């Protein structure tokens, strides 16, 4: 019931004409941290994605995803009172019990109300109900509570934030108004506790945070995207995405970023890398979608050749009746070579638009 409404809500928003009251992501934007880690109500859509690979002391592996979405509804709402709706806040939480072979996910929707959800620079937190990330000093403390599982994690960034794209914007298609501001923490050292089915695991690992804000929508002939965050054992990271067309072709605005061990980032254009499925697929029982769950990535300029595989095939997040908001987002393992030398790593893979054309904008 609840999730159905959420899906319908988001479906509708993507069809909204671009209201004049929102600002476009423009090149030359001057980033200010930590202010820019929090909300940008001038832009219609904003999200904070936390994903990570964690391991308990006994070797038990977990993956997690906690996403906060903010979608502008009516910035200039004249309604009085705490409950007037200017934005809606959606959140997705998923826990991949890799060794247990189980995937858990939950979603929730709120308005800001009297403090139910938000992303406040004053309070130094991004939250939706009792799911939140609180900034304390240089640390980000993540808390997420459900009836079945809870996460309490402390994340500390090893590197400064990365600004993707060129000139402060990440271009998503042709035209000035088709871009976003896109910031990442590519290596968050993470430790904390996961409680699952009454058992508490003390875990450690690495996480990734994506923060993006923009006002444009997905181009009409784009159906979805495949996105990768890769954390390699040599302390380097890669972010890559490709935008898919209805006819199966890949959009020339697909791009990526390479972050070296010192935190220096390099932009990767569509011609700088290749990413392609290797044939292994997963058919989701809920949405009847076929997801390619094994990938091959090559970046000639970095002499990188990587094979990506997931340790848990069933990492699809479904959103009630709306296929448009179902996607696969899960932990992956990396094996490959850099200049002929073997290299490993972990990462996260997101695949959208396989069940139905994706209705949220690309990231």
């Amino acid at each position: 019931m609840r999730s159905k409404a959420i899906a319908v809500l988001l479906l509708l928003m993507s069809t909204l004409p671009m209201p004049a009251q929102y600002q476009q992501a423009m090149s030359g934007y001057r980033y200010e941290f930590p202010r820019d880690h929090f909300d940008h109500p001038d832009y219609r859509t904003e999200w904070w994605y936390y994903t990570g690979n964690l391991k308990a002391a006994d070797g038990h592996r977990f993956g997690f995803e906690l996403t906060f979405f903010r979608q502008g509804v009516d910035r200039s709402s004249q309604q009085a009172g705490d409950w007037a709706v200017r934005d809606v806040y959606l959140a997705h939480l998923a826990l991949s019990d890799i060794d247990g072979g189980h995937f858990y996910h939950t979603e929730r929707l709120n308005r800001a109300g009297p403090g139910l959800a938000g992303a406040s620079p004053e309070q130094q937190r991004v939250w939706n109900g009792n799911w939140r990330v609180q900034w304390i000093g240089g640390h980000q403390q993540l808390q997420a509570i459900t009836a079945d599982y809870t996460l309490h994690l402390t994340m500390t960034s090893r590197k400064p934030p990365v600004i993707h794209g060129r000139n402060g914007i990440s271009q998503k298609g042709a035209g000035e108004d088709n871009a976003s501001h896109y910031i990442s923490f590519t290596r968050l050292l993470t430790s904390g506790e996961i409680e699952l089915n009454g058992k508490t695991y003390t875990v450690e690992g690495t996480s990734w945070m994506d923060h993006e804000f923009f006002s444009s929508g997905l181009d009409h002939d784009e159906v979805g995207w495949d996105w990768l965050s890769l954390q390699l054992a040599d302390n380097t990271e890669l972010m890559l995405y490709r935008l898919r067309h209805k006819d199966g072709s890949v959009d020339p605005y697909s791009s990526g970023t390479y972050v070296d061990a010192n935190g220096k980032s390099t932009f990767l254009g569509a011609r700088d890398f290749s990413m392609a499925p290797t044939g292994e697929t997963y058919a989701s029982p809920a949405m009847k979608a076929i997801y390619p769950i094994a990938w091959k990535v090559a970046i000639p300029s970095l002499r990188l050749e990587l094979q990506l595989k997931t340790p848990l095939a069933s990492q699809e997040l479904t959103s009630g009746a709306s296929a448009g908001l179902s996607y696969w987002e899960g932990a992956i393992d990396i094996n490959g070579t850099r200049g002929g030398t073997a290299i490993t790593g972990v990462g996260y893979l997101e695949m959208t638009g396989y069940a139905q054309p994706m209705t949220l904008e690309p990231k």
Partner: protein
Amino acid sequence: MMSRLRVFYRLIVRPLYREPARTLLTVLAVALGVAVVLAIELAGDAAAGSFRSSIETLTGSANLEVTAVGGVPDNVVATLATLPYPIKVEPRIDDFATIPSTGQSIPLVGLDLIADHPEGFSLPEEERAGTSSLAQTLTADNVWVSSRLGAKPGDTLRLLINDEVHPYTVRGVLKDSGDTGGLVLMDIGTAQRALNRANRVDRILITVSATPSLEQWEQRLRSVLPAGVELRRQGSESSENRKMLSAFRWNLRILSYVALVVGAFLIFNTISVSVVRRRPEIGIARALGASRTAVLSAFLGEAACFGAVGGLIGIFLGRLLAIGAVRLLGATVDNLYVSSTPAPIQLTPLVILLGLAIGVAVSLASAASPAREASLVSPVEAMARGEREYTTRVHKIRDLWIGFALAIAGAAASFAAAIAGKPFFGYAAALLFIAASAFSIPALVSGLTKISSGMLLRIGGVEAMLASRSLASSLRRTSVLVGALATAIAMTTSVGIMVGSFRQTVQVWMNNQLKADLFVAPATNPSADRHPTIDVSLSEKLAALPGVAGVDRFREYEVSYQGLPAILGVGDTLGPHPLGKVEFFSGRSTEQVNHELRDGDNVIISEPLANKHHLRTGESIVLPLGDAQVRFRIIDIFYDYGTEKGFMIIDRTRALRYLHDPAVSNLAIYVAPGADVEKVRKELESVAAGHNLVIYTNRSLRAQAIQIFDRTFAITYALEVVAVIVAVIGIAGAMLALVIDRRRELGLLRFLGAAVSQIRKLILVEAGLIGLLANIAGLALGIVLSLLLIFVINKQSFGWTIRFHWPIAVLLGALTLVYVATVLAGFYPARVATSLNPIEVVHEE
């Protein structure tokens, strides 16, 4: 040896078959008694049981709730929603809206529709394809209504909320959840705007997991909540209301039992008469070998049959009566206690069983003594010829002593305290007094008839004297008849005196209290637990009018005190007549008390509240207000008849420190000396244009209050009428028996030359005498019972001081009516008596 079945046939079935009219009347008396009890039970369940639904609509699985006087601050919702516990938090607005065109009042519920949707919530297809976003649809001035309201998606629904009418668009139809009286659902933001609940919600529902225990959850949650809000179990408001209503329902129940007592008297009489009349048959049966137990069980069997058949008819009749009773009771519950819509009447198997059980049990109990007497008839005695008259073995004097002892016991019981807020000893005292009067009646009848027979001869001639003698000679039967009728009359009189005194008390109180010339209130339906508000700025505008000398503002909040509902009143203590003219226990003037009210955290409380919670002047009550628990000292107690829940009143300026909403519930307006009230009223109306208000003049407010009062007590009048009908039916039946029984005597009289008119007169005078005796006994008993009702039962149940008052007109009217009814009840028997063929009757000898 006669088989039991044969005994039953001979002694019971045959005689019954021969006298269908009398059989029918007896059964009818039982049926009416059962019907009244069932009707009250059914109607009570439907009317009083239903209020739970509107409060508990769409509460889902919530097991705890947070409330506060004047609403829970919004930020508490956020505090709870961000706690690191897997709990569900649902803020909620609960109020009422009125449909202006019909005056129908419907529960209005505001929920966070973005976060969650109640079961059965849906959006029309076109909403999804529209250009405006769903979030806007959910939170604009849109409503979802229950199917009962008959509105379709797209319709415009105009709703009167507080003092203003707003148009809303119906976006969807919700399935009716059984017994609710309709529902309007809107987003919490929309509801907050409509009701001017500035950043406050009425309740926060919380669903917690089964572990840890609810107590532990309460402890955890309480530690993060501000002091001024209350955490309690979901549904406690309903259970508090139920608790409060139970005293009211008990009183009604007891009242309905009186009809049953009257019925029992009549069964007793019928069986007694049967036994006497069938002595020869009993004798024959005994001579033919029927055992004593066979005779006993035959008569008990007869009673059981009366009970069962009467019970069955009573169930049917009770179901019919309940329809009317629900309407009356619903109004009472609405006016006195809590907004409600009567639920459908449910005739459950349990109720049917109860009806049958009551019918049979009452019949068996009343038949026990006469049936035993029948079993003692010896074959020889019964078969002796000529032994056909009563043997009046009535021990008048012994009975009088028993009656006296019972009355003493009754008086003692009336001094006992209430049990759990219910005057069970008071009820017992009432029963003891009724029993006492029953035992005293033989002495009364014989005494009075002896004294009056000479007088009757002079006034009514020889027929009157004969009638009087006949009554005295069949003392036992006469006593039972008089007893039954007297009980019904006593009930009527006592309730009449109680209600009349109450009415008078309320009137005097209103005359003293209501000093203002005009009263202004929102135009929503009046109800005991709704306190719609008026914009406070209006009071300033009104005060500035030239003809207005002053305006007193009063605000009411529904609160819970010590597990029972109460009303917190917030009033101006300055002004021409602040709080009207209140009469205090201490005898102090309103000005003195007002001065003290302003001085500190002081409170005055009404008498029912003081009685309910055993509070006295000088003690303290602690109220959670806003962000704090505030301790108020009780500086005085005042008489109040406005609400049974009880009032606690604090000063407005002081209250606004804790409760920040300045809106008012009603205004009292004082017109300047010399100004024309009508003219001022017109001006008020023009200033208040755009607000939906009612303006009462002093006189019309009082009239309205008395009208509500009368509507409230309509159910008691209805009950009395039924009891009297039962009694009169009984009298008719008994008179008929009397006539049939005395056919020989009457035939002889006719044979000896008595005219038909004389026989008719004889019977009618007998009926009249019974009526008169019953009136005397009933009035005496009624006065005793009315004292009991006023000073014990009512005081313990509701806590009101009622000043005793003689409602002469009502009493005279009622007594005359009963008297006339009794005489009328004699007409049919009189016709039977006059149609006897004297030759045939004498021939039987």
